[in-house]
């Protein structure tokens, strides 16, 4: 296989040279470089606002994501109870236990969960409404 510029191809070279000449000599607007330098400065300022270390940048991004998740969590916590799937699910599970179940038994039956206010609240609500 021939390498760079070993192909003579006189006609092809002539046509390409003619084609290239039709692309006029590049002329730039007077303010081209000024506009470019303004963009460079803006880029520089934006970079200064960011932490210089790559690790700090990662930490800053993780913090931002964590903050969003935290806000989402609190919003969910304050939604009306009817929209809480988890609460309904918890109530359904507790309702499947015998009516005489103690709070400790409820906790035991939800081994995956912590001793949450949610469980305690649902258990006592059930006691009030079902054990009457």
């Amino acid at each position, binding site marked *: *296989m021939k390498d760079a510029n070993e192909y003579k191809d006189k*006609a*092809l070279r002539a046509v390409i040279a003619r084609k290239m000449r039709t*692309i006029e000599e*590049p*002329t*730039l607007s007077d303010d081209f470089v000024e506009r470019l330098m303004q963009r*460079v400065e803006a*880029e520089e300022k934006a970079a200064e606002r960011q932490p210089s270390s790559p690790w700090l940048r990662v930490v800053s991004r993780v913090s931002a994501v964590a903050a969003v998740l935290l806000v989402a969590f609190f919003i969910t916590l304050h939604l009306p109870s009817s929209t809480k799937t988890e609460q309904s699910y918890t109530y359904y599970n507790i309702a499947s236990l015998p009516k005489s179940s103690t709070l400790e038994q409820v906790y035991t039956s939800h081994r995956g969960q912590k001793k949450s206010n949610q469980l305690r609240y649902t258990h006592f609500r059930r006691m009030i409404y079902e054990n009457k």
Partner: protein
Amino acid sequence: MGYQQANIDDSVLVRSILDGQTGLFRLLAERYVGRMMGMIRRLVPAKEDAEEVTQDALLEAYKSLSRFDSQQSNLLTWLLSIAYHMALKHYRKASPKASPKAQDLKFVDTNQEWLENLADDEVDELLADTSADRLSLLEQAICQLKPDDQMLLSLYYYDNYSIKDISQITGHEGGYLRSRLQWIRKKLAKMIEC
């Protein structure tokens, strides 16, 4: 611009910019903007668009200047590589339909069999024929090529870049470029064969 600054070596210039002398990027831009714009205009003919793409390419070069490795390539080739990819991206986005009609050309199918049947000597002969008719056909045939193939031809035949340099500019392997060039030559020869 001071005399000393004007003669500053590329690698020193890059190092100084990276060390915080942002203003020196102006010197880098003034030094290479013509070559970059020239490359971009091959794919982006409208002057205003070409200027915008050139600005974007230079800004991209500024942002990724820390990745420039003088051991791997020279500054011009590296900048041309950025310009090439920016121009190609713009071209694909704009997808212009305006290419000269070529009713006189033979239909060339995508079946590659004819490539093997075409002798190298025959290709050499066809692409060396400078008769007016043949040149006119060849011009039309080139317009039918894909933009990156046209760019490959211009880099090889007009700028006289080596395959290694073209590889650095386009990001394609040398082996691929050699076989692509061979394929383009055969295709052109087939198109202008009477």
